[in-house]
């Protein structure tokens, strides 16, 4: 099954930005070993919006953590561009995340004591990087936060908070943006907005986006959906619709 993932499919004529080979992640729990990842090979191409799907415990979050350098795989390699990130020291990983990766989490995306604008600029400040004001203005305009910039997160709705997180992740034009259940805590309307931003940024700004989700509707915004079960890539769909994804998922759960 994994054979199919090796071959690039639609919208993948550009070179891969992220390449994972033979990723294995094993957890020790009370003497018994649990394989969260059992040998995953996967590529993500520039400008592609990919969704990673799978039932609970399929290892999709672990895969994302390993791809993003938040967690170290037990074996296997991950390359970001030409950089092998597996085996990097913590400090280098930190700098890599800071300079080349964007993150959107399900919740707790924002620091409560910083305003929306401060939150968006935070990674640049951490890196002591000058901000591309034009890009900042453009992104703020696109996500519709113009009049919310000086608000603290507590004063923003869930959707607005998540849009701040998206703006933050995109501002820096990272090589890849990882989104972990970005719409998990949102109502469907707000969720749809966030997903549209992600899709548009992939299309218009050639932004590579990798999203973990268990929501078929969310996955339908992606160009490609990769299905995981028991730590292995088991299927893949391009140009997905919510119905197609649902039925594939259902099949996976039943199998």
């Amino acid at each position, binding site marked *: 099954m994994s054979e199919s993932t090796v071959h690039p499919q639609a919208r993948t004529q550009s070179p891969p930005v992220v390449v994972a080979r033979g990723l294995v992640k094993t957890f020790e729990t009370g003497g018994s070993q649990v394989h969260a990842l059992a040998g995953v090979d996967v590529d993500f191409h520039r400008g592609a919006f990919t969704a990673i799907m799978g039932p609970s415990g399929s290892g999709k*979050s672990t895969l994302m953590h390993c791809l993003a350098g938040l967690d170290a795989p037990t074996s296997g390699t991950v390359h970001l561009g030409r950089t092998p990130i597996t085996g990097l020291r913590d400090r280098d990983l930190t700098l890599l*995340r800071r300079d080349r990766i964007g993150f959107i989490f399900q919740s707790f995306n924002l620091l409560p004591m910083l305003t929306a604008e401060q939150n968006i600029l935070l990674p640049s400040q951490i890196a002591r990087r000058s901000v591309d004001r034009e890009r900042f203005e453009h992104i703020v305009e696109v996500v519709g936060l113009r009049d919310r910039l000086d608000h603290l997160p*507590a004063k923003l709705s869930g959707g607005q908070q998540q849009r701040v997180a998206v703006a933050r992740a995109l501002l820096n034009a990272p090589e890849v943006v990882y989104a972990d259940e970005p719409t998990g805590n949102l109502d469907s309307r707000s969720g749809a907005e966030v997903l549209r931003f992600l899709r548009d940024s992939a299309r218009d700004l050639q932004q590579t986006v990798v999203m973990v989700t268990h929501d078929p509707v969310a996955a339908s915004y992606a160009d490609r959906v990769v299905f995981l079960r028991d730590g292995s890539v088991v299927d893949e769909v391009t140009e997905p619709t919510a119905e197609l994804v649902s039925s594939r998922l259902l099949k996976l759960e039943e199998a």
Partner: protein
Amino acid sequence: MLRTTLAGLRLHTSRYVTTALAILLGVMFVTGTMVFADTLDSDYESSVMGSATSVDAIAEPEEPDFDPEAGPPPPAVFGEDDLERVRDLDEVADADGRVEGQAVLLDSDGRAFGMTPPAALSLGEVSRFDASEGTLPSGGDEIALATSTADEAGFGTGDTVTVLDPDQEEREFTVTGLVELGIDPSYTMGGAMILDRDTAEEMTGASGYVEIDALAAEGHTDQEAADAIAAVVSGDADVRTGEQFGLDMAQEAGADTAVMRVALLLFAFIAMFVAAIVIYNTFAIVIAQRQREMALLRCVGAKRSQVFGSVLAESTVVGLVSSALGVLAGIGIGMLGARFGSDLSASGAGGPVDLVITPAAVVSGLAVGTVVTVVSALVPALRATRVSPLAALRTSATSAGLDRRTGRLRTAAGLAAFAASAAMVGLSRTGGTSEADMVIVTAAALTAFVGVVVLGPLLVRGVVHVAGLGLRRTGVASMLAVDNSTRNPKRAATAMIALTVGATLITGYSVVSASTESTMNAVFEEQFPVDYQLSPQFAMDEPTGGEPAEEPADEDGDAGAEVPDAETVPESVRSALASAPEIDQVMGQRTDFVENEGSADGPGGPVNLMVNTYTDTDLATDMPSDLVSGDLEDMGPGRATLSEDYADGLTAGDTYTLPTEDGALDLEVAAVTEGTGQIRGVVVDPQDFEQAFPGHTGDDMLYVRGASGADPSELRNAVHDAVDDHPTVQVASMAEMKNQFSQVLDIAFYTIAAMLALAILIAVFGISNTMALSVLERTRESALLRALGLTRAQLRRMLGVEAVLLCLIGALIGITLGVVFGWAGAASVLPDLILTVPFAQIGVFVAIAVVAGLLASIMPARRAARTSITGSLAGE
């Protein structure tokens, strides 16, 4: 419910580690003080009892009534006949008396030992004292020394020492032994030597016995012996059994330890107070964090009272366990203290000290620690009961806590407290100095502290805001730290206030100390502009029998000058000083007394009028004084200057009648001084003084002023050369006196600082704990920051800056309060205070605050940096 509590405690032990340490340290201080003081008490008691019970009865002559204005009375003694009668008693097996006088002992530098000649005594055959090393002297060339005297003068057994006889002739003795004379201050402070009976009488001119010690005859009790002795000795003598005598002495010694115990407990109280703040803050934070846990308990049916009880039970367990550990630590500290303390104390019998652990010491430590913990947890426990069961269902219970509100009421109350405090300080400064002012200043300080507590959150935000303006630019870690430190101002304020207590006290004391020193120096310089002061060794008794009392009588005026008089500085010293090129001026002071009849027509002032004159002195320039009326320039023959208490309403221009041996002397009052400076009593012209006291031609005091530009060491040599042949002349250098004075102040400062250090340490623990709990609360934030690319070092720096900010705010507020109230306090005690802010010391405090902040952040920062990002992001 208790089981839930205990299970929770086991799960969250780490949250209470620093709290437990705070309690432990406070309790350690309390118990340590008790053990230390109890041990010293018992140590004194055993050494005193040991010496007193070696005899069965001790008789002391009746003390004559002491009249402070009549000068020291002759020492009361038993006569030879008293001893004979005691020896003849059937109840007494043997008895002997102690002869005691004074003799000049030369120390290893050949100068007279002590400000006054030490006691020279002979111990009888029967005595409560015995040699603790070597043997008692048995011949005319042997001597034993009191242990403390031998240490101070630098002698040991076998050395040769020089003692001056009543004619100031040197006699050499060999030290045969050392005697432990106990804690009698006249021996420990003044020094003591032991000679054989005949030599003692010869060297001191003393006769009679200051004490008779007796052994009871077989078949008679100690009490019977004592009663029999009381019946036969002359006068209303004080006769006690050896045991009673020992008990009484131990009690006196106990009074000294009681003072020390109270002083130490005061500092223990401060430490416990700071610990209480830390405990309160810990429980408040922990309970805020466990809101959902509490709500869940309520959901499953726990009553409010049960939630309350569970928090109190938790605090009781924490308090008891930490207090028990604190008691153990206190016993250890008490043991160390007793070991070092007994070396310092007078008893110093050497040998191991038996540690005394009273039940009171253990119980008080346990009780104080537990009660303080439980009481500090009361408010947080009450707060816990207000948690609604619904809170369990809310998702983000802990992410709340961005409490930026500060009520208007709070602001108004805080400002009112500061205004009231300022008004009180102003009030205390309106008059001069008085005890009431001291009380007002204390009240003002407490009010201001209440103001700080009330306004604390606002202060934290204000200061952080100002500090943040610069700090934010220095990097993202500092920027985040600035924001974090104001997230929960109440919490931050409480943590900081614990440090403020210590910082206020220590700064306040350092301001008092520095101001006292500079004020005293200014007083020295203004009223006493000399470099050296020379005086004879001041004898407590009349040195030799007969002569001095009648000395000023009639015509044998010149005879007194020929006989070397122990009470004046020899003329040869004066001429040697005057001829030295390094010395600009030698002023002499002569002091004598005349009896004031006290009748209606006599002048005012005390019964014995002090009359001074100054030779080679221009009063107006050399002895400047604060004047009530007149002018010192007007002094001259036939004129007098009075201090206010002698003037009795007279002012300049009035006539003052001085009663002298040759009849009254009418003098015109030139000036009246306030009597606070050098000029006191009646000051007359040397010419008039000679007329009034024709026999008094020696100087009682010489004041030496160095030539301008003279090298200090050459000046010193010149002065010391002049007195080389006169070992009893005491030389005091003003520079050295100032030095000694500032040394005394320094020692006091370092002692107090050491005592307060514990309170400060506890406060630092509190800040560390607050940080640790906040870090726990912000685990997911830390993970987010790390995911976004904040390095571990930056994360650690962020927490470091936050802790340093907290410590600095606490210290700065403390320093401000300390300077203000140190000044107000010192000014209410010392007139004309020169405020001196010890900037160097304050700089050190600030540096300590920075270091303390860094230390406080180490553990929380390590924890935050180590936490796995993915684990924390995954959720609770």
